[in-house]
């Protein structure tokens, strides 16, 4: 009886599985404009000469729109042109790191290309994980694609170079973390009048902390008075997730004039007594400012990682906020996902005072986070030549515009001039223009080979400050002390 039942169940499931498997796979939409005939044959010839036709190369990346574009559009086009099959695994952020690192550390060679986020590149370079692409192309001129040139990329590619200028990764996405505000609210005459009456100056997107605070307080009260689900600001303050560390150390502290996480890169010390700035007064003031914003943030702020901040803003629950640039396009333009289409303004993040902008203009500092990543090739890869072809393929000028529209990422100067990108720029009230003109004020993560390790050392203190267990000052004091204790263990600044 039982066996009979089990058998029946099993067969039902197997049948269901077969039906599922038999469902016709929807045909992938055609790629970006297919390359011209001559180029196509170049790719094929190169693939043949490198013995790559019929080879499968495998990569790992985070599941983001730019990666998905690479997987769904570029990979099939590449296979058509070269006969090289690309299996791109898109997974969660922490899995992506873990697997890439395990693979490269063990020298296994599962992955022929890996996503390198800008902040991890220094660790990878220090460990000699990555193939020197410049060198490889110089040694194999027959594999250097005519349409590919490192010089076409924005300065973002500099993050993927070593001291001699050799390139180790082809940039595939780049964003800045910017200040978003609601144009409908800030442009509301009634709100403008009320604001002026209360604070004595005109309502406008914030350029400094005080103004940001006033705006946040004003709109929180505004929402409360009208029974709206509206608060003054987003805060990416998940009290158990590194995203809160990142907002504090890469967006807020720089805008308060504390750069490189407050770690002195000459002696690898963080605390003020040892020459660092992590627990300096400026850092404490900026941290305190950020913590104060929690009272004007929607209740989900302390559970918000990067994606929930974007969702809160897209839901119209916040009047202003710091939001990662990759979200700007969809928040401003996709009615399927956003409530605030057409009402999104873009500006530079507010700063503690004038000196920060001056620092950034003169190259001593930066005002916010320039984020992004590249595809690099592990030295352990067994199909290096094929992966180099793929990396050049995605680095062609011709594929950039569609990619930019799909993922609001720009890695080449020429992409800004494409009509499709211009159209998107208008919809986002100038995000791409801002990226193009003001991008130089932003910077990526500091060149720490120990990035992730030290992040994990500092983050718990940030979490505890958000949860109210520690004051901002105490949290930074303790974090700086912990970093000073940990870095010598890692072999830095003994």
């Amino acid at each position: 009886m039982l066996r009979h039942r089990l058998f029946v169940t099993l067969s039902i499931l197997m049948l269901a599985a077969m039906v599922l498997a038999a469902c016709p796979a929807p045909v992938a939409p055609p790629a970006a404009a297919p390359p011209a005939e001559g180029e196509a044959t170049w790719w094929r010839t190169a693939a043949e000469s490198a013995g790559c036709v019929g080879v499968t190369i495998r990569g790992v990346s985070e599941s983001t729109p730019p990666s998905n574009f690479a997987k769904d559009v570029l990979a099939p086009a590449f296979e058509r042109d070269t006969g090289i099959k690309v299996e791109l695994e898109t997974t969660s952020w922490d899995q992506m790191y873990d697997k890439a690192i395990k693979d490269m550390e063990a020298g296994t060679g599962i992955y022929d290309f890996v996503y390198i986020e800008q902040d991890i590149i220094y660790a990878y370079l220090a460990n000699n994980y990555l193939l020197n692409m410049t060198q490889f192309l110089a040694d194999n001129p027959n594999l250097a694609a005519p349409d590919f040139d490192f010089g076409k990329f924005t300065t973002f590619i500099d993050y993927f170079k070593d001291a001699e200028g050799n390139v180790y990764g082809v940039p595939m996405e780049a964003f800045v973390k910017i200040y978003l505000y609601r144009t409908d609210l800030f442009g509301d005459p009634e709100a403008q009048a009320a604001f002026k009456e209360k604070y004595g100056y005109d309502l406008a997107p914030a350029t400094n902390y005080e103004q940001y605070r006033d705006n946040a307080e004003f709109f929180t009260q505004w929402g409360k008075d009208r029974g709206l689900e509206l608060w003054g600001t987003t805060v990416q303050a998940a009290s158990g997730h590194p995203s809160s560390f990142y907002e504090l150390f890469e967006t807020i502290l720089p805008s308060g004039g504390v750069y490189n996480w407050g770690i002195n890169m000459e002696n690898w010390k963080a605390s003020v007594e040892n020459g660092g700035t992590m627990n300096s007064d400026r850092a404490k003031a900026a941290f305190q400012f950020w913590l104060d914003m929690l009272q004007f943030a929607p209740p989900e702020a302390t559970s918000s990682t990067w994606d929930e901040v974007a969702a809160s803003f897209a839901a119209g629950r916040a009047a202003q906020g710091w939001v990662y640039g990759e979200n700007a396009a969809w928040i401003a333009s996709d009615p399927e996902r956003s409530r605030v289409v057409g009402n999104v303004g873009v500006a530079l993040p507010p700063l503690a005072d004038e000196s920060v902008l001056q620092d950034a203009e003169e190259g001593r500092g930066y005002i916010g986070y320039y984020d992004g990543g590249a595809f690099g090739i592990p030295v352990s890869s067994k199909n290096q030549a094929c992966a180099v072809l793929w990396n050049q393929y995605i680095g062609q000028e011709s594929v950039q515009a569609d990619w930019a529209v799909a993922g609001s990422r720009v890695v080449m100067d020429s992409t800004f001039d494409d009509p499709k990108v211009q159209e998107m720029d208008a919809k986002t009230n100038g995000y791409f223009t801002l990226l193009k003109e003001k991008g130089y004020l932003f910077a990526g993560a500091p060149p720490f080979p120990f990035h992730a390790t030290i992040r994990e050392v500092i983050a718990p203190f940030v979490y505890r400050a958000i949860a109210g267990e520690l004051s901002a000052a105490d949290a930074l004091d303790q974090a700086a002390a912990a970093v000073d204790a940990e870095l010598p263990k890692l072999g830095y600044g003994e």
Partner: protein
Amino acid sequence: MKTARWRKILGWIGLYALWIALTLFTVLPIYWMFVVSSRSRVQLFDAPTLLIRSFYIQNYTGPLSDPVFQRYLLNSLYIAVGNALLVTVLALFATYALSRWRLPGADNIFFWTITNRMAPPAAFLLPLFLLYTQVFRIGNWTLFDTQIGLILLYCVFNLPFAIWLMKGIMDGIPVEIDEAAMVDGASQWTVLWRVIVPLAAPGLAITFILSLIFAWNEYLFAATLTSVNARTITTGLAEFVTVTGTNWGQMAAVATISILPALIFLVFVQRYIVTGLTFGAVKE
């Protein structure tokens, strides 16, 4: 007299109140998952309500028509069923041996098998990754990213559990039955298949279903030890959480779909659960 009757009625009311409250508590999270799966991304921004006013079917049709997702689902099915079968058969053999032979050190072996389930998983991922990518290899073929790799791996926590469960059932089947059959001229194999298996059926069923559920639901190892070809549905769930917004609707839809197969199995073996779960502590 009267008080006794009232007491009885109150008892019934209490019983039903308890179970209805419990059912609500049990169902609420699952129901909420279903509600979320019925909404589009914009609708999720509305004030939370437990009612389903419209159904955003794209959350289901999207993943279901995606070949990648279909592959995940199939992988999960193969791996879970494969592992459950393997574990059930191995546990049957092992517990039959433990229960019918006086093997030296058997009780220590028994305890050792259970300790395999106790390890905190995180630190064991690295050695497993190395084993799967470098040690167990034949030419270019490795266990990494294969279904058989996960089927074997899940034995680490399913087999100890199954052995414990089955040991009790086996011990509960009197040895005299085997001996009677042997006297009648049956071989050891015949006894095992024709006599023991039918008697142990409830235990086998519950072993099978619990192994199936655990294997179907496992996340951490599946995420680390697969790449493209053998990924399972639970690793697919994590892919919905991205920097540019978590697609909660589709994620909930996939989670809802992923419950179904285990649920079907569970309903079928419902009535064997109670007889099967004794762990040998109490015998019938």
